[in-house]
């Protein structure tokens, strides 16, 4: 991605965050927000050239909305699961640490995948090295790498592959 | 300040008390850090609830600033726990 494009991308993201936090449209606040996000994106845009944000598009936007709904459903399932294991008198857990593989490239995509895995039923991400993710699973169902990838990561990856293609 | 809010605050106090016991008796340092992280999240929710009970809009800013700053402090603590001594 070119430098000017990444500069404007970072500038608009920072200004949207400022608008969200202040939640007003007074002229002074808008001017201060514009100045601050201009200065910050002038300093930091070189860092964000390497990361690579996804380009915009209608299909990606629709899939992002579907992805948010899927993640919310999984969050609610995760919480019911963990809460059941917490209040059960025998504590029925079967923990272990497994490795899964991912096909995504790009740091933003891997970050989103890791955070989604952290929020879903009984799994949380310990580390990401290259294209492998180290995952602690509260109820291990299979010890091999391929089956674990199919069980944990596949339901998010098929959306993320379209969003961050 | 009616019966429902008293009930909610009592349930929150039970959760806070259990995680405080884990903070006192956790065998290792990461246990205690996890307990403090949990207490932080519970207390951010409590601050918003108390702002609703006192009916002051400006008190929500404290919850926002608190969640932001405790996130920075916990990540710094975790970085130094990770390196080993």
């Amino acid at each position, binding site marked *: 991605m070119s430098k000017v494009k990444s500069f404007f991308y970072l500038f608009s993201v920072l200004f949207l965050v400022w608008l969200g936090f202040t939640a007003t449209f007074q002229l002074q606040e808008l001017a201060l927000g514009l100045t601050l996000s201009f200065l910050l994106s002038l300093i930091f845009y070189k860092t964000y050239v390497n990361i690579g944000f996804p380009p915009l598009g209608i299909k990606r936007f629709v899939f992002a909305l579907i992805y948010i709904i899927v993640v919310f459903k999984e969050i609610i399932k995760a*919480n019911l699961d963990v809460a059941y294991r917490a209040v059960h008198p025998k504590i029925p857990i079967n923990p272990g*640490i497994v490795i899964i593989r991912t096909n995504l490239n790009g740091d933003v995509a891997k970050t989103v995948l890791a955070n989604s895995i952290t929020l879903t039923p009984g799994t949380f*991400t310990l580390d990401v090295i290259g294209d492998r993710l180290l995952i602690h699973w509260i109820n291990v169902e299979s010890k091999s790498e391929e089956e674990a990838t199919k069980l944990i990561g596949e339901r998010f990856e098929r959306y993320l592959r379209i969003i961050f293609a | 300040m009616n019966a429902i809010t008293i009930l909610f605050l009592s349930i929150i106090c039970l959760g806070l008390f259990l995680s405080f016991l884990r903070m006192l008796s956790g065998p290792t340092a*990461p246990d205690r*850090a*996890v307990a403090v*992280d949990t207490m932080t999240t519970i207390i951010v929710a409590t601050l918003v609830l108390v702002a609703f009970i006192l009916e002051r809009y400006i008190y929500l800013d404290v919850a926002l600033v608190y969640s932001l700053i405790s996130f920075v402090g916990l990540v710094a603590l*975790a970085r130094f726990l990770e390196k080993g001594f």
Partner: protein
Amino acid sequence: MYYLGVVVTGVGVLFLCLGGIGLFRFPDVYNRVQAGTKCTTLGAFATIIGVGIMEPTWFWKTLIIALFILATNPISSHSLGRAAYKSGTELAEGSVVDMASEFEEYSEE
């Protein structure tokens, strides 16, 4: 509308309490991270959104706080879990598998 907010807040408060119970009962650090971050994330989210539903003029601010918690809580739990693993905390007794020794960075320690 008011009663919907009360119900959502009640569910959130219940999940906060369940997070505390799980944190107290689970046997090792990693399971405690599971209970202490997942249940309290949904609990805090539902409590804050419920307050926003009860008082509709506050809804935007509460939505911002809730989204902030939803974004930062996985990161702090991930960094705490990695710190626990790298500082050599053992898994609990009933653990099934530990595949982390296949990683090059971890095997030498």
